[in-house]
């Protein structure tokens, strides 16, 4: 305040428009300090004298008297409220630091705030260190303990029951309200006069009395508005976590948790590319080795050996047989030759049995020399025979030159054919040996489908043309348009028996129904069939005599305009004394190319009055 006095006085204190004393800032600054000072001045307690301040805790401003803090008292002191945090209200979030008996800061005071102050909160390291339960029960103490326990249980039960009863009672009373809002039975009568006094208004009543009754309310109605109570958040901080932080996942853990994806051989909806080895592994079939019994191998080996042996035996046997056959043949040939020689010698008269016998003897003696020599011998023998024959032929009756030529030709052809056959047989034998089929057998053994594919099947029709349903052609819409609705009878495009004239049989009259009247059935039929009578005996004049159909529309010719109706001529005809009507038919103005003569339709080319003479056709 003195500081203010030193300042020069304000110039316009009198002319100020703003009332500083009412400014809240001003009020805060000055009135408060003044009131505080006054409070400090007005009431302060007697402070105990020095060295007698044991147990004295200066807390409120009046404890300090007029002075400052007491240094010998080790308590936070706020003389004149200096340094005191005024914002530390009950709702604030800062806590004063508290210390325990040994002067250590109690850090866990923070978790023992509002609601937790009544609870047990474990927050210290000693709460997580292992302890071993003391489990020593004295022999005599058991009974007391049991009794104590029973008592305790009893007490707890009673207490709980009472508490729950209370809750239930509250609920019950809420559910069965005793103070049901009374329906006010008393009614209020209001009398009023309408302002419009006329007969037309208000039924002409002069005044009315209204009875006002409160609308009855169903007491059992559920409440219209539901108040949903939001649970109050607990004001206490969360309890401390009493375990160590989770350990980092080791590589082994990660590997243990790695679950391979499911691989299916049938489904792959996401379309992943799955390596072949994974697929095979998923299949599971390759996982176990297939154990093949040795006996399979043994069996096949034995079979092979047996087959070989059998083949050898067969070939050996066949060889022996062939040799035997050959020998037999040889012997027969020799015999025949000997016979022939004998016969020849008999014919010639010379005894010629010698060479045969010598030959046979030689052949028999030659045998051990081997087949080759034997064959050569045989060839030589044959040549000799042929020469002998030729000589004989020469000796025989002479043939003419032409005959000879012919014979040679024939022989040549014969020889050729023989060679051809031989070659074919050889080829066939070779093919059969190698397992190939000859052309003939191959074709014969073909499958039906093969035959059809090769066009070898005899389908009756040689054109190779495929039959199609006629209805499938010439259609614009498609297949199903060809088949009409079910009630339409168009299944067949043709009559079943096209050869038979349907119409001719349909209207055939019965025989001898009324003969005397209409004549014989044939007569009637003829009559019916006869359409000659419908044919005009002459054509329209001017119409071209064409039997064919009309190619163009009917053309009309224009005549002279002066007399369209031929009145002049009519008049002149009258003068001539001719009948006018005779001319009309023949002198038609229409030049129409009439329909064909066989047409049964009425072609009324002329006017309605035109008379056409039908001539009965001769029969």
């Amino acid at each position: 305040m003195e500081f203010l006095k030193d300042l020069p006085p304000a110039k316009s204190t009198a002319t100020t428009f703003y009332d500083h004393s009412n400014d809240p800032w001003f009020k805060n600054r000055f009135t408060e300090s003044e009131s505080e000072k006054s409070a400090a001045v007005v009431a302060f307690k007697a402070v105990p004298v020095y060295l007698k301040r044991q147990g004295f805790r200066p807390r409120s401003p009046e404890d300090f008297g007029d002075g400052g803090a007491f240094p010998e008292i080790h308590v936070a002191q706020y003389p004149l409220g200096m340094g005191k945090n005024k914002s530390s209200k009950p709702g604030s979030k800062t806590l004063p630091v508290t210390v325990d008996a040994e002067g250590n800061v109690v850090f866990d005071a923070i978790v023992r705030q509002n609601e937790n102050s009544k609870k047990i909160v474990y927050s210290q390291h000693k709460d997580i260190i292992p302890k071993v339960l003391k489990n020593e029960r004295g022999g005599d103490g058991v009974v007391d303990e049991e009794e104590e326990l029973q008592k305790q249980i009893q007490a707890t039960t009673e207490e709980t029951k009472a508490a729950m009863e209370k809750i239930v009672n509250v609920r019950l009373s809420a559910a069965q309200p005793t103070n049901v809002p009374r329906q006010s039975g008393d009614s209020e009568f209001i009398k009023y006069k309408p302002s419009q006094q006329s007969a037309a208004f208000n039924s002409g009543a002069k005044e009315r009395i209204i009875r006002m009754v409160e609308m009855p309310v169903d007491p059992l109605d559920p409440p219209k508005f539901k108040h949903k109570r939001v649970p109050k958040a607990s004001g206490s901080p969360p309890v401390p976590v009493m375990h160590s932080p989770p350990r980092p996942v080791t590589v082994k853990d990660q590997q243990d948790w790695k679950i391979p994806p499911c691989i299916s051989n049938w489904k792959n909806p996401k379309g992943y590319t799955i390596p072949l080895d994974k697929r095979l592994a998923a299949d599971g079939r390759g996982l176990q080795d297939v154990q093949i019994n040795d006996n399979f191998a043994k069996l096949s080996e034995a079979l092979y050996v047996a087959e070989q042996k059998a083949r050898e035996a067969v070939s050996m046997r066949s060889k022996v047989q062939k040799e035997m056959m050959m020998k037999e043949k040889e012997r027969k040939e020799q015999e025949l030759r000997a016979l022939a020689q004998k016969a020849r010698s008999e014919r010639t008269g010379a005894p010629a049995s010698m060479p045969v016998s010598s030959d046979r003897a030689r052949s028999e003696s030659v045998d051990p020399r081997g087949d080759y020599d034997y064959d050569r011998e045989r060839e030589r023998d044959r040549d000799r025979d042929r020469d002998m024959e030729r000589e004989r032929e020469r000796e025989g009756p002479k043939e003419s030159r032409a005959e000879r030529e012919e014979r040679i030709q024939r022989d040549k052809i014969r020889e050729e054919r023989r060679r051809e056959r031989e070659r074919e047989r050889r080829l066939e034998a070779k093919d059969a040996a190698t397992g190939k089929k000859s052309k003939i057998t191959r074709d014969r053994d073909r499958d039906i489908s093969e035959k059809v594919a090769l066009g070898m099947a005899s389908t009756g029709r040689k054109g190779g043309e495929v039959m199609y349903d006629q209805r499938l052609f010439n259609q614009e819409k498609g297949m199903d348009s060809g088949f009409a609705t079910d009630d339409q009878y168009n299944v067949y495009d043709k009559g079943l028996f096209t050869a038979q004239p349907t119409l001719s049989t349909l209207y055939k009259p019965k025989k001898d129904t009324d003969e005397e009247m209409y004549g014989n059935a044939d007569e009637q039929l003829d009559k019916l069939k006869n359409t000659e009578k419908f044919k005009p005996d002459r054509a329209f004049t001017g119409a071209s005599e064409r039997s064919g159909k009309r190619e163009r529309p009917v053309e009309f010719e224009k005549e002279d305009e002066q007399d369209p109706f031929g009145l002049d001529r009519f008049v002149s005809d009258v003068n001539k004394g001719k009948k006018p009507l005779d001319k009309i038919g023949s002198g038609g103005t229409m030049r129409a190319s009439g329909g064909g003569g066989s047409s049964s339709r009425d072609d009324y080319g002329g006017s309605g009055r035109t008379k056409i003479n039908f001539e009965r056709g001769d029969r």
Partner: protein
Amino acid sequence: MPGTTTKDAESIEPQSLKRALDLPPPVPEAKKIRLSHKIKVAFGGVEPVSQTGTSSASVSSLHERNFSTSALMESTRWPRPEWHAPWKNYRVIQGHLGWVRSVAFDPSNKWFCTGSADRTIKMWDVATGVLKLTLTGHIDQVRALAVSNRHKYMFSAGDDKQVKCWDLEQNKVIRSYHGHLSGVHCLALHPTEDVLLTGGRDSVCRVWDIRTKRQRFALTGHDNTVCSVFTRPTHPQIVTGSHDTTIKFWDLRYGGKAMTTLTHHKKSVRAMTLHPKEDAFASASADNTKKFSLPKGEFCHNMLSQQKTIINAMAVNEDGVMVTGGDNGSIWFWDWKSGHSFQQSQTSVQPGSLESEAGIYAACYDQTGSRLVTCEADKTIKMWKQDENATPETHPVNFKPPKVIRRF
């Protein structure tokens, strides 16, 4: 509570031990910094106002909490495990057509009932293992069962959100407790009150009045499925374990509020069991099995080995044989007092089922504690008993006291 004082947790005196082991002094700053950082983050800082004279009875000294565990654990004072005979499987009961998910014993110990994923509840004779009765009514897996010892009632709860009360004299559903918003996973009966507790996937534990079918309380506070619950006659009356890894104690007297929250587990607490005599319970999660003392919920110790699987079922009998059944079919038997696993066995699946179908979903001792029933994923129920021929000589206890317990 004079009854519980003798069983109170005894913490080992740290000072002498420290001197004895001659350990380097711990670094208190690190912890302090971390804690203060947490506080700052959460509540915007603390103003350094010293305030003497506050009641510091509940607050303990700073340096006491900063010792490492190894220093605190004196291996010589760790209790020796008692010898227990090994357990062996003596009966396999087939009959269910799906996973067997729950089991409960009759108080008379004549029969037990199992609930299955085939939506049926079957009752079996304990002595012979013969099927006595099949109850149908649920339309989804039967996840929890309880037989009342105060009424002739059986209670069942399932994934179909239904909680049913069966009258065992008529074998009929007589009540159904409607209110769960999702599948019900656990169920418990209060021992002294006519109150039924169910916890489910809607992360609420509901307290039902058995007679009136009305919901007394909805114990809200868990952040995830409530998958285990048990009750006690004294405080705390309700204890729930949840997939949010916490265990909560609830007070029935004051409007069903959570009294204590235990956050010692790292994984969901799927199974809890109360010791029949001691005031202690054990809770199992995938990381560890932990033991807590009861009125206050003080942490006692971890079990000395880790099963390393999801533990679905847990039971303890009066002899102190605790059994835990895992998702991979492992059944471990523990000594309750010392936390030593004296038998680590594996169930064998019934022929015809996959190897992966070995899994324990529920386990329960009979009323005497001499027989164990496990419900398994291979659709069978297996019964176990102790090997009579075993002696401490044939099956010696292979126990080494823990030197350092690092895992909390």
